[in-house]
């Protein structure tokens, strides 16, 4: 029994050390200036072209951004600062090592994870723990997307650090410390990738909005897999134009099946302004499929909101 435990312990030890060793070259210290002065945080490369993920508080509004990679410093430009998700995407003009992306769908409570960042003025530091839960609200308020709550200790300066699984893949971006740094929230990488893909395709973030408010369903005669219905529907919104009606029970939005309010939040995050999305709803005893074309979300960053009007939908083209 002891031998078996010891073997498992050695295995974890080797795995964690290996993940740290392989990821460390792709993790950078970020220094910048904002209205409150000089700030320091962490970021990591996501591709070989110098694209960096970090938290919004580090790179979302700051200027004079400098990235330290090894013993060299590089100026960085901001591609995206998205306050809605709490992340920012920066770019350094250099080739870079990078951390591969994982599918956070694989994550479950008690999955071991590792955060690696630059706490205060200390060198690169790993912190090991487990996924404590996948939360869609915090202190009674809904989050924009299901967040990874990690029982991983983080310190000041580790905002923007990668959260890795034991395969060495990034599963999230550390954006929030919880209860004096004893835990943290990480924004899931799959949601961050939606923002990055928006930038790659359109040169900006295009969060979609259809103009409905949903609530838990009150009727008992609904499909057992759905508990969410359209509670309020504004006139002249994409939802109204697409044919949605008050009382419709949501069964599926795009590829996401709706089984809980959490699913609605996640599905709505993946809406892209101008891109038609199928809504499958239950109306009475019928199942109806409707096509809805979202417009720009009212909470989108200002530079996005000033983009040419999308109300009628414009043809989308790949800009890469």
């Amino acid at each position: 029994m002891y031998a078996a435990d010891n073997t498992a312990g050695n295995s974890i030890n080797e795995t964690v050390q290996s993940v740290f060793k392989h990821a460390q070259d792709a993790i950078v210290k970020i220094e910048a200036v904002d209205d409150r002065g000089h700030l320091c945080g962490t970021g990591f490369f996501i591709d070989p072209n110098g694209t960096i993920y970090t938290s919004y508080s580090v790179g979302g509004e700051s200027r004079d951004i400098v990235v330290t990679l090894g013993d060299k410093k590089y100026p960085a430009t901001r591609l995206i600062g998205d306050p809605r998700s709490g992340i920012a995407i920066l770019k350094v003009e250099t080739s870079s090592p990078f951390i591969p992306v994982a599918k956070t769908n694989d994550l479950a409570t008690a999955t071991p994870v590792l955060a690696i960042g630059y706490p205060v003025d200390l060198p690169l530091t790993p912190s090991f723990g487990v996924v404590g839960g996948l939360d869609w609200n915090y202190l009674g308020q809904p989050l924009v997307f299901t967040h990874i709550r990690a029982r991983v200790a983080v310190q000041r300066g580790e905002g923007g650090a990668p959260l890795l699984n034991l395969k060495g893949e990034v599963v999230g971006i550390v954006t929030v410390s919880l209860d004096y740094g004893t835990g943290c929230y990480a924004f899931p990488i799959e949601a961050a990738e939606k923002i990055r893909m928006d930038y790659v395709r359109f040169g900006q973030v295009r969060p979609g909005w259809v103009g409905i408010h949903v609530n838990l369903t009150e009727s008992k005669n609904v499909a057992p897999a759905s508990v969410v219905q359209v509670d309020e529907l504004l006139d002249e919104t994409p939802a109204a134009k697409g044919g949605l009606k008050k009382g419709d029970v949501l069964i599926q939005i795009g590829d996401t099946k709706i089984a809980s309010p959490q699913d609605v939040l996640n599905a709505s995050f993946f809406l892209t302004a101008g891109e038609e999305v199928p809504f499958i709803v239950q109306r009475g005893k019928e199942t109806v499929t409707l096509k809805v074309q979202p417009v720009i979300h009212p909470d989108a960053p200002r530079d996005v909101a000033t983009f040419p009007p999308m109300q009628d939908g414009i043809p989308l083209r790949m800009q890469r």
Partner: protein
Amino acid sequence: MLDESDIQKLLRLKRYEQPSPQYFDKFLQDFHRRQRVELLRQPVWKIAMERIEAFFSEHSMGRYAYATATAMVLFFAGITSFNILNSGSQVVAVTANAPQQSLPIKPQIAKASLPDAQHPRYVIDTRPASYERSFSF
């Protein structure tokens, strides 16, 4: 002329005309405030003299003891003042003769005036930025 029953009725009515409990608290606070204001109107030396007199009267000391104690207080105060003045002049002398770079005050001033880059703000939020206003989308 009121008879006894009328007086009793009046007393019963008057019972409800008492001020609220807060009134007494306020009254006490106001009283203490006025007392302090009155006290502060006197010069400091007069207040000190009153305190000293009160102290000696409480300890029932004689006139000679009172004079002796006052003289001793004045004597020790004089010696203390003399020592302080002497030590101050020594400090000035040492400072004037010492080489400038060895003064301990210099590094402190230099540290305080360092640019902000030496004291960065290490960032991590304590609340999610990514709150959604409601289940509207």
